[in-house]
């Protein structure tokens, strides 16, 4: 059986100014990563990204992105991620850095990791809360973190819902 295997890179975009994070757009990341790979790996790298490359998920509130590429050359993409210094969005340049959290074979495994990672982050945020109201909110978010039930339409593997949680 021959099947095109892909790798999903779960990455986090770090910016100094959280408000500029809300402008995060799929297209900006798509082009930024493509240009970075073209710079680091030349024409060969740019050609590798023609096949099965895409940005599957962007969460503007938390800065989590999910990038998909072929299994045979996901390392080229991974090695080019640290060289991205800014994202351009409608003429505005946002200084950022991208770090990879997890590499998975399917979207589902990445989602499972993200849920675990998010609960860890919430636990870490609890001691930093400034007042009781925030603390209650964080506790509530931790308790409600869970994977939603799978949808009936099974062939739509790209449709994933991650339980949105509010931060700070």
């Amino acid at each position, binding site marked *: 059986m021959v099947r095109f295997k892909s790798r999903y890179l779960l990455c986090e975009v770090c910016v100094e100014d959280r408000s500029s994070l809300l402008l995060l757009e799929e297209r900006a990341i798509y082009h930024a990563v493509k240009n970075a*790979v*073209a*710079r*680091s*790996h*030349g*024409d*060969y*790298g740019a050609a590798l990204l023609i096949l099965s490359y895409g940005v599957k998920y962007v969460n503007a509130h938390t800065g989590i992105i999910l990038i998909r590429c072929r299994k045979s050359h996901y390392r080229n993409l991974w*090695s080019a991620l640290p060289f991205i210094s800014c994202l351009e969005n409608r003429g505005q340049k946002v200084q950022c850095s991208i770090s990879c959290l997890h590499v998975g074979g399917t979207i589902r495994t990445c989602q499972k990791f993200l849920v675990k990672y998010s609960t860890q982050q919430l636990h870490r945020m609890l001691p930093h809360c400034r007042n009781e109201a925030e603390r209650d909110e964080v506790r509530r978010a931790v308790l409600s973190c869970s994977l939603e039930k799978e949808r009936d339409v099974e062939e739509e593997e790209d449709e994933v819902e991650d339980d949105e949680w509010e931060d700070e």
Partner: protein
Amino acid sequence: MEEPAAFERLVYKNASIFHYMKICLVLENGRRNIEAAQFKQLIISGLRQLYGEVGAAFPFDLLKFDPGTLTGMLRVYNSGLVKLWSALTLIGSYQNELCAVRVTQVSPFLLALSGNSRELELDQASFTGEKPLLT
């Protein structure tokens, strides 16, 4: 009784960690004065175009270069041979002038590059009707 002589055979799969290439630069408008450093810069720019910054950083050495005939000898690690060779193939221009890089010989051993049966010039005297050496 004498013991039979032991027979030992050694087989090396990767005898050399380097590969040596003998190449020649061919320019459209004839020969020019090109220094060794400029030649190496041309190869690095070819690598950068095809394989990016990572490819251009791969170490290789220009062991010999003859500015008159524009022939040179490169040495590269085994893992970078395919990349270097493909980058050399795709070098198209040098300072806005069409050019091509011809690869004459490739070998894992430097000694093999000293002789080339393609450029061997046979002695003319051996073709005339002279007496053979062994009688």
